């Protein structure tokens, strides 16, 4: 039985604080100079976990992910308390994957042992670049050497670790990126996340780009950078299993697969999103984003939910395509039919086949090809239309 068929239930925990905001980041992160009352947050996390478990009781948790923000700013005891609460309200599967995102600084690395003791078995490090000038431009607080040292600490403590790099950075050439990527691969073990720099609205980079003070690679160079990334990683035995994620086969991030395979996940903490199946209907949930407002909500209501929408079949179908086609394993058209009550437009599918952007596997799965991935958003729009 493949991984896809296994029921999976993920828990996402959001820690919304950073030491500083990076100019490209549009995530829900906040800088608080006055320190954070972690004990108060622990209580709130416990309440929200309890409330969520009441809505979806009896689940077996297969993955847990601490994201942010910067979760490696949490005390290990906080992580421990949250994991305890999850175990108290749900069953935790044997072999559960517990990932924590960490900044690759020496200070954060001092807590790695504590996280491991608390139950974390995988870390994902935000290295972002192996080039000091780029790190500075990206607003990162660490140097290349510091990042590599943190990777070494992670390697010595955790069986599984991954790190992120951002490419298609301003003025980056294919040659420079190829060298940087090869160096990264030599430091990697089983998993790498490689994201093309995307300028998000309402970020400092957005304003800089608008005033032309920031110029990022154009579509053609972006494509070339994408292509050499695929080539180099595949040669190194780290093929893409998702648009921006590479792993040795079997070492994929199981938590993120939960999203892409449209399984169930609970979102805990400020600004966390969830997808819960309740009475046969898929609910899209989201919590209050501002940390203090979320705290007050949880303390008075027991949860921080501000969105709890039932998805229509069409919305579910759209999400299924949007997320599922990001994976090289593709989607099962039969599951699409079950979810939506309709079939994919055969004319659209056949045009995409003809273009070589889509292929049907012997087992009936539909997947995007190497030709289709660089233009995946257009492929998805075609199929969803």
């Amino acid at each position: 039985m493949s991984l896809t068929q296994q029921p999976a239930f993920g828990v996402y925990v959001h820690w919304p604080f950073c030491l500083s905001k990076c100019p490209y980041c549009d995530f829900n992160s906040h800088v608080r100079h006055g320190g954070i009352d972690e004990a108060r947050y622990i209580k709130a996390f416990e309440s929200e976990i309890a409330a969520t478990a009441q809505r979806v009781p009896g689940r077996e948790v297969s993955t847990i992910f601490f994201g942010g923000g910067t979760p490696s700013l949490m005390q290990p005891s906080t992580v421990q308390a949250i994991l305890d609460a999850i175990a108290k309200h749900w069953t935790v599967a044997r072999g559960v994957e517990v990932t924590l995102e960490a900044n690759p600084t020496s200070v954060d690395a001092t807590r790695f042992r504590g996280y491991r003791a608390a139950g974390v078995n995988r870390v994902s490090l935000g290295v972002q670049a192996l080039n000091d000038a780029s790190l500075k431009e990206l607003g990162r607080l660490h140097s290349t050497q510091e990042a590599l040292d943190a990777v070494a600490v992670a390697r010595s403590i955790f069986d599984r670790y991954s790190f992120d790099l951002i490419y298609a950075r301003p003025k980056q050439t294919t040659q420079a990126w190829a060298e940087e990527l090869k160096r990264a691969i030599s430091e990697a073990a089983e998993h790498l996340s490689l994201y093309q720099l995307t300028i998000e609205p309402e970020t400092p980079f957005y304003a800089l780009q608008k005033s032309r003070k920031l110029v990022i690679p154009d579509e053609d160079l972006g494509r070339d950078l994408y292509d050499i990334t695929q080539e180099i990683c595949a040669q190194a035995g780290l093929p893409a299993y998702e648009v921006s994620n590479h792993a040795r086969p079997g070492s994929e991030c199981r938590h993120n697969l939960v999203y892409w395979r449209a399984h169930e996940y609970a979102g805990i903490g400020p600004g966390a999103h969830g997808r819960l199946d309740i009475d046969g209907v898929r609910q899209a949930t989201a919590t209050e984003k501002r940390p203090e407002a979320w705290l007050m909500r949880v303390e008075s209501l027991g949860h921080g939910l501000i969105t709890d929408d039932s998805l229509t079949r069409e919305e579910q179908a759209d999400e299924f395509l949007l997320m599922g086609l990001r994976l090289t394993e593709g989607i099962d058209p039969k599951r699409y039919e079950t979810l939506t009550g309709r079939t994919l437009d055969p004319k659209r599918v056949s045009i995409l086949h003809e273009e070589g952007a889509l292929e049907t596997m012997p087992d009936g799965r539909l997947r995007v090809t190497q030709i289709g991935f660089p233009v995946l958003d257009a492929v998805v729009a075609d199929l969803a239309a």
Partner: protein
Amino acid sequence: MTSAPIQNIRNFSIVAHIDHGKSTLADRLIQLTGGLSDREMVGKEQVLDSMDIERERGITIKAQTVRLKYHAKDGKDYILNLMDTPGHVDFAYEVNRSLAACEGSLLVVDASQGVEAQTLANVYHALDAGHEIVPVLNKIDLPAAEPEKIKQQIEDVIGLDASNAIMISAKTGIGIPDVLEAIVTRLPPPKGDRNATLKALLVDSWYDAYLGVVVLVRIVDGVLKKGQRIRMMGIDAAYEVDRTGVFTPKLTIVDELGPGEIGMLTASIKEVADTRVGDTITDERNPIDEPLPGFRPAIPVVFCGLFPVDAAQFEDLRAAMGKLRLNDASFSYEMETSAALGFGFRCGFLGLLHLEIIQERLEREFNLDLIATAPSVIYKMKLRDGTEMEIHNPVDMPDVMKILEIEEPWIEATILTPDEYLGSVLKLCQDRRGVQKELTYVGARAMVKYDLPLNEVVFDFYDRLKSVSKGYASFDYHLTDYKVADLVKMQILVNDEAVDALSMLVHKTRADARGRGMVEKLKELIPPHMFQVPIQAAIGGKIIARETVRAMRKDVTAKCYGGDATRKRKLLDKQKKGKKRMRQFGKVEIPQEAFIAALKVDT
């Protein structure tokens, strides 16, 4: 209430260019004679232009009438019937029939702008109809007004004595009493015999939700009464009159309409199409022998396909067209199927403005999204086998080998322009295969007459004229004849397939420029696909222009996790809606804007 004595009736219309103040003057006349209270006038500028489009564009589309009661300086009471007429060339037909119902006209000219091409055309129509004409200079309160100069212009250009032109400002009310007095003293009363048998002109008809079909008539001889059996001579149908009435401008029911009067009747007529404008109405029991001279019926001269953007709206479009047609018999439609656009209608219009107005009304009043194909005119084809046919859709064009010759319609255009834009105007006309017939100066304004092929005019001519003259040139035309022309069918191929909705007949000498313009425009409008999309213009098998939409190279969201699903789904939903506005043509999606904008190529 019996009908008024004929010597106390004055029937008049107002001839004016758009914006020269015709509707404002009409409002003032209504106000001063007490037709509507001040309260009813408030907030309702231009009482007679009742459609939104009429008010917004400052034009009159449907003829309307209003009866005013006026106590003149001679101590007598008069009935003044004002026929409000359309000012635009497309509606020349409606102008003519309105003029035929009157004995005189006010020629309203903006005292700073002077005579415009449409004014000229309409004043000639009025003279042809035997009208007395009273020149009125409007907007004399504006600093730019040059009444003496404009008077001279009226004399030079039109050949009318303007020495006793009335000076007014319709906006402020200056001179309006003089206008009323001039209508009584300077325009003749109608002629007619009350004791003769009924003879009336059918001026207009429209559908009213409460009254059914309303027929506007001008009584020539005799009396029209409720209960009377009437006969419409042209269509040979008989009806019994239910009501007779006049518009003051509110509808007022009257017992009868006598000679010289303008009013309405209803008679359980089912559809507007059951009446014919210009028809003669007589008494069924005692009919007259000779009908009034008729008008040339309104014939569509411009055609285009109208298709719903969303194919699901086809039935809605059909219903909407049916409703519009109820009140506008000059517009025609029949079902059409296009490989590119699916089901729609081939529609005929009186002109380009008429086309625009119908399209706009369909979109606004019926909430439809439409794609219009290239406007076409009626071509006459003589085939080698001796047969002849008329073509108003390039798709229907027979094989070139079968065609002996093609004839296209020509017009005579009159253009008035300030001197500084004359060069550009002449160039535009030359570029459009025009043949200059006349060039005269009136002060600083030039008047040119050109013979032009209508197919060059329907294609963006008016927009170009306005743009090269910064909006100052005015334009009027009438159809003259058909001439043999060296026309070819140009096709547009997208991804090697001909898009029927973009094909057109074009003159051989103009094909290259038009083809290049079209493919360049389409290149901008067709979004990148996963593959290269060649766009070609072709005549027969020969490619005359080519552009390529480059293939999309990268379009993929780098990061997409659980927290992004909602946001990305909403973006996808928007994209899906955008795709609904595109037409899948083979493997290529063509946005609806492409069909419209490709026809506005600057060549």
